[in-house]
């Protein structure tokens, strides 16, 4: 598991497929090899009690780690990520007196996966309960495991096919974990962060040319 950076690709046309097509073409020019598909989906459960502290429980699956369920608990002050076997999903109905999911908030990113040298690029279209929302690009550099070491290298790579939407500064999530070993949990947490941004943004994330990476 190398270092992963997640980036919202601005989609001014709001059509989705046009922009992904463009990215596909660009990346194929870089001698990329398409190697299958990927999905990352996220369900969010909310506390049902009337008591003050509202906690959110994000249940995330990543097709890269097909037998793992990530449960990310957001208490407002801190986040705790639990990696569990996918049987954890069966436990959730037993907790429904405390946590209930809202089906219409189910959000997922689906798309194609490419390999370029030691890089893995995943171009995903984000849909929330069936409606197209944004384009998310995940870039992973496999041989390196510390964001601090390879950020500028990855930035160079990302700029080579995404252009100016890649900001020179690190995403804030990675900023705090600059010298830690990157884990699959970090990837999933970045997804949750982006998904939250997309959910909360009333307009298309793509229309804001700045994206929301920094």
């Amino acid at each position, binding site marked *: 598991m190398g270092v992963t950076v997640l980036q919202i690709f601005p989609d001014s046309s709001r059509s989705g497929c046009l922009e992904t*097509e463009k990215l596909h073409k660009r990346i194929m020019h870089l001698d990329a090899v398409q190697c299958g598909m990927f999905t990352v989906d996220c369900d969010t459960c909310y506390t049902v009690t009337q008591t003050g502290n509202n906690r959110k429980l994000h249940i995330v699956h990543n097709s890269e780690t097909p037998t793992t369920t990530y449960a990310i608990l957001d*208490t407002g002050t801190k986040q705790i990520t*639990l990696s569990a076997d996918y049987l954890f999903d069966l*436990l959730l109905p037993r907790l429904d007196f405390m946590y209930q999911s809202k089906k219409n908030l189910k959000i997922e990113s689906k*798309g194609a996966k490419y390999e370029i040298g030691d890089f893995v690029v995943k171009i995903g279209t984000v849909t929330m309960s069936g409606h197209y929302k944004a384009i998310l690009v995940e870039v992973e550099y496999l041989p390196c495991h510390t964001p601090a070491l390879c950020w500028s290298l990855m930035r160079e790579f990302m700029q080579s096919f995404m252009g100016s939407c890649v900001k020179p500064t690190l995403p804030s999530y990675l900023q705090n974990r600059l010298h830690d070993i990157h884990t699959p949990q970090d990837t999933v947490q970045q997804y949750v962060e982006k998904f939250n941004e997309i959910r909360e943004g009333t307009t298309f994330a793509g229309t804001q040319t700045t994206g929301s990476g920094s």
Partner: protein
Amino acid sequence: MAMPVNVPHVGENLEAAMKSQIVPDQEFLLQGSVLDTSLGVVIDRLRGLCDNADILPETFHDHEVVFVLKDFSAMSTPGPASQGVMLRVRRAMDYPDLPYQLRYVGYPELGNYPALLRNCLDIPVSNNVCEFLTELGAKLDHEFIAKGFIMKKGRIKVTVFKMYKMGIGMAKDNLEQMTMSHMVELSVLTTKTDMSVAEDLRALADQLKPLVQLERIDYRRLGP
């Protein structure tokens, strides 16, 4: 359109499995105990009955922490919300590298089954599970240490173990034993559709008979 997107994601697979009832979430269980003095006899008998009779039975040394998840602020209302759910976290003390196990155990089902039947989920989790559960709203209920042997015969899991209370400071040598007996459990995980294995469980229990009385015991019906 760039490419057809048809990756079945994890949740869908699981739902399909649930529908066809092939998820091994049912557990048959028979419980009994044996006095410490007769432990050797029982172990010898079990070694003869179980697989791999030629090697010594595997030992385990687990620490179990039980959490109760419920709405602690609304105590009076009846129903599952006030009753809560017990979540058990198990950790192998002798193999610190193994993942923690989060275990949900349902109440025994009513009905005339050869062994105690209950819903059971064993979920391997990362080691921050205790912190996670606490933040989720669960509270520590109790904890104990279980030390003993594990064997298997086909699909049946046989555990013989002793339970210890956690002593002050929880030093390794400062363990207070629960009783003068070892617990003996025969269990097998199965699916809703496959109940045949319960008979095997019963047969194995009968082989142990005069030494250990293995029965389906519902802990809720025991004395106060």
